[in-house]
């Protein structure tokens, strides 16, 4: 089960849940699973950057997840 964490400003979306464990083989499956758990979350989460096992993705899609993957949703990074 991948460990998934969302930042504080998205807790309204998750009913206060900050950390959950989800079974998913890739990022797309993860979003689908989270949508079932937190309705209407996938649109917001898809706009976030996400770190999967330390690697930051601005636009994740089919990135594979391991059973012990650590997934953090975070604000997209902009730069100058």
């Amino acid at each position: 089960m991948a460990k998934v964490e969302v930042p504080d400003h998205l807790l309204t979306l998750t009913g206060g849940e900050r950390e959950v464990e989800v079974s998913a083989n890739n990022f797309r499956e993860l979003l689908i699973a989270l949508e079932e758990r937190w309705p209407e979350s996938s649109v917001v989460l898809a706009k976030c950057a996400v770190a999967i096992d330390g690697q930051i993705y601005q636009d994740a899609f089919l990135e594979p997840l391991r059973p012990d993957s650590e997934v953090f949703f975070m604000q997209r990074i902009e730069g100058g």
Partner: protein
Amino acid sequence: MAEAVDYKVIGTSPVRPDGVDKVTGRAQYGADMNLPNMIYGKVLRSPHAHARIKSVDLSRALAMPGVYAAISGADFPEAQHGEIGGEGGGDVADLAKNIMARDKVLYHGHAVAAVAARSVQLAEAALEVIDVEYELLPPVLDLDAAMAVDATLLDENCFTKNLPEKPDKPSNIAAVMQLARGDVEAGFADADVIVEGEYRIPMAHQGYIEPHACTASVNEGGQATVWCCTQGHFEFRAMASKVLNMNIADLKFIASEIGGGFGGKTVLYLEPLAILMSQKSHRPVKMTMTREEVFRATGPTSGTHCKVKVGAKKDGTLTAATAWLAYEAGAFAGAPMGPGAMSIFAPYALDNFHIEALDVLVNKPKVAAYRAPGAPQSMHAMECALDDLARELGMDPIDLRMKNAAEEGTQAPYGPKFPAIGFKACLEAAKKHPHYTRPVPEGAGRGVAAGFWFNVGMQSSAEVHINENGTVTVVEGNPDIGGSRASMCLMAAETLGVTYDQVRTLIGDTESTGFSNVTGGSRTTFATGMAVIQACEDIIAQCKARAAATWGVDEDQVEWEDGQAVPAPGVNADVKPLSLADIAAKAARTGGPLLGRASLNAQGAGASFAVNIADVRIDRDTGKVDVLSYTAIQDAGKAIHPAYVEGQMQGGAAQGIGWALNEEYIFNADGVMENAGFLDYRIPVASDLPMIDTQIIEVPNPSHPYGVRGVGETPIVAPLAVIANAVRDAAGQRINDLPFSPPRVLAALDNA
């Protein structure tokens, strides 16, 4: 740390291919485009910082002979809310209203109308006969006033985002953000020493030398061509399409050479005005901002008010930290409070922390990105607090940072665990650096501080063409701001196994190459470099296939070595190696021209860390601070072109020193900027600075073929705190607010 790789071309510092044209004046910048029948556009700007627009009457301007077009907000499609997309994000309606005010003006200098005429002088005269009726509103000019309970609202429909429940009332606080981990109270209870600090930094501009400029030409079929100085012509095209409700296929954007951007040229200002007025006049329209317009009406970076509290054990181990970070957004939401919050504690392993950040509307220009947006301000607060903590503990400030330094496996405050990073290597280098080991000059002070930036990847495209003689043309879509053509040439040469002078790199326009996000976020050498490398690998695969066909062997029996196709070890083929030139010469017989291509969304941008050291002396009679020596140490992953990496480090240090010492927007009580020119807004000149010494650390980024980390933004993060800590050392007291202008320093010394 990964082993050093013996590259042949990468790591050398050849002369940049665009250098001759730039130093001889041949290079075409934003204002250099001239076309037949071209006319000139100028913008009428609000004389008020906050007012409702009751009416705009263009008729007298339009009646003037030689005036070909005049527009106001009413000429634009209705501003639709929606995602801008691209690197900076934001709301399309806000962007549209910032380009041309509709119902309200929200800062002094906000565009209200525009005119295109046969000369600049005539256009300026026409602006004077445009009649605008305003209903004045009180300007909201600082964070405290904006956040007051009874504050005048900039936007009656602004309800603070990210709160547990939608608030009952609108507010000037557009959004809040929190990051937290562990038990802060327990962490502070566990501390032997606690320090607190409160710091204010005023709004400051990027200070790029080239003002914004563009020329637009719309033909009778409605197709527009726009020449402009931009950090990203593809994203400009997308923004213009949304603001003007035009088909993106009817817009062609061509990036000129660019005289600096630093994030400020990721935002659209003039281009939609020029397109609209070209549509109306059927002539090309050229628009160029004055320096005053650049200051008043383009995005600076946020003024901030930050509070930090840090606790530590006697041995220096950090036990807890909190931060409250308020950022001025300017007229529309979108201050860089998110990256500021995510950066502030990033260099350190911290189990207990809480960060709250605020995005606050004020009647000032809408802020834009500026090198590592948000991080210099927040990290200034933390790095000053750490300096105070080191003094309280009697610890060397580098040792204190080393004690708590993040490393591979440390969980960053914003979530993920770091892969291989170079912060400890930077600290070790700083501790051993001759600048740090030599005595502080008598009467001077020394400061150190750390810097951090995430860096990003994002989308890039590249094509590689092999010319008939085997030379190489790379085409990609990122305007070259810091020498990226040379870096692309180096990476292509390394990958193909040819020499640097065999490769040329061109920046394609939006119709001649694939999409690329902006040159920003320290992404170009990393992400577009990856695309170039992959396009070269595509070429190599094709060359191996053609060599195999020529030799009558299987493709897997051919290898690529030193720019040549050779038989693989053990393959019994009595053949001469085929160079890129050999294969190109026979290309017609083996399948036609050689074209490699790649497009990608680059992932795995490696975080970059820096440690800087400065010595300063204060003139106690005048309060003037002189920087005696400055050293910047930074992890570049792998420096593709070391001289340009050093240039980025030196440039970032120079900008940061200027920000720390003198740069600030000074507004009067009506919200009018009083120092909108380089005489009064004082950026550092060469005589203000010592030679900026540099040391490049190379801890390769495992996610890039050559180990590249972005290097363009991190250099500006540490200097604010470095100078602040050096001034603290020299003055014998902490001066919390920037800049250290002589009057502020003198007042602090007098009050001590």
